[in-house]
């Protein structure tokens, strides 16, 4: 991110921190005048993201690993924009100028999908509470225990809480998470939650692991 700092330093008051813990608890009215440019690698707790968006004036997410649909989900969740690390210097300047001007900063080609998602969510609001076939198909590649772990991650629980709830060791929870990340092709828990929201899990009650497992494996019978 050094070239971001190099471009923006002459133009704005820029400060750099290497840990989000140095921001929280966010009880500083100055944050409301600040634009946060955050590397997703720093977001360890998925509950931090909405809190960041509430605390700061604007939040720009920077990463190289988010798919287009996940980028769009970040916008729904409160981000003002998404960018790759390695954009050139004029674009860094243009990105921040756009964010300051209340623009949503996303690749132009994704705007139609973003708009369509808004319309679809509006039209699908009557479907809350129904099991989502897309979720079931996607998560059917996970084991029963892995689905249970996903359910707890989606609630924002940390590894210790999950291990206590499921009566397994923290090491076992981590092993399940590694398998989940590999199967769903996500990098970390934050991206997992964004991935799940992208499946519109948030629009319906998250089905229990038992129900989901039974449903998917009945569906898979010949």
């Amino acid at each position, binding site marked *: 991110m050094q070239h971001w700092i190099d471009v923006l330093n002459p133009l704005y008051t820029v400060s750099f921190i290497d840990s989000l813990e140095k921001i929280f608890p966010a009880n500083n009215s100055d944050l409301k005048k600040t634009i946060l440019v955050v590397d997703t690698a720093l977001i360890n707790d998925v509950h931090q993201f909405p809190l960041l968006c509430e605390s700061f004036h604007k939040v720009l997410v920077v990463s190289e690993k988010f798919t287009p649909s996940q980028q769009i989900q970040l916008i729904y969740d*409160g981000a003002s924009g998404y960018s790759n690390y390695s954009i050139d210097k004029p674009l860094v300047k243009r990105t921040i100028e756009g964010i300051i001007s*209340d623009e*949503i*900063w996303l690749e132009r080609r994704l*705007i*139609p999908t*973003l*708009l*369509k998602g808004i319309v679809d969510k509006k039209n699908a609001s009557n479907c809350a509470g129904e099991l989502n076939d897309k979720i079931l198909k996607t998560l059917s590649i996970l084991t029963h225990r892995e689905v249970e772990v996903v359910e707890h991650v989606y609630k924002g629980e940390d590894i210790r809480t999950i291990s206590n709830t499921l009566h397994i060791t923290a090491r076992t929870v981590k092993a399940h998470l590694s398998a989940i990340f590999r199967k769903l092709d996500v990098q970390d828990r934050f991206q997992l939650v964004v991935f799940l929201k992208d499946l519109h899990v948030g629009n319906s009650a998250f089905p229990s692991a038992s129900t989901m497992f039974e449903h998917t494996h009945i569906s898979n019978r010949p």
Partner: protein
Amino acid sequence: MNILVQFITVSNSIDKGFDKQFNSVSFHNASKALEFVGQKNPNVIVLEYTLESNNTELLVDTLLIESPNSKIILLGKNLSDEVIIQCLSHGVYGYLDFKEIDMFLEKAISSVAVGEAWVSRKLVGLLIERIRG
């Protein structure tokens, strides 16, 4: 690309001059326009807001039921952000003010026909704020 453009307008001046660039047809009556949309599924619909000023959103919904793959560009005169956002949330793909027609309508139609949205990032931002709020 042979783009079928349907104009739904009050006046018959907006659509003039576009026959050479696009395969266009015009309607000044919503009922007949709906009938055509259902039969021909135009690539792009250019809809003048004042035609059904109290029911534009309903007309947009109905047009998209008749032809889900059509992309709608809204035309209006000094429409408020609120009105434009409302129409965007119903599925409109673009907005153009009357004063921009000569300069941008052809480009807007071509862009929207290939799946782009003709709307400013700022309006998208306002729409997102609305749905979050």
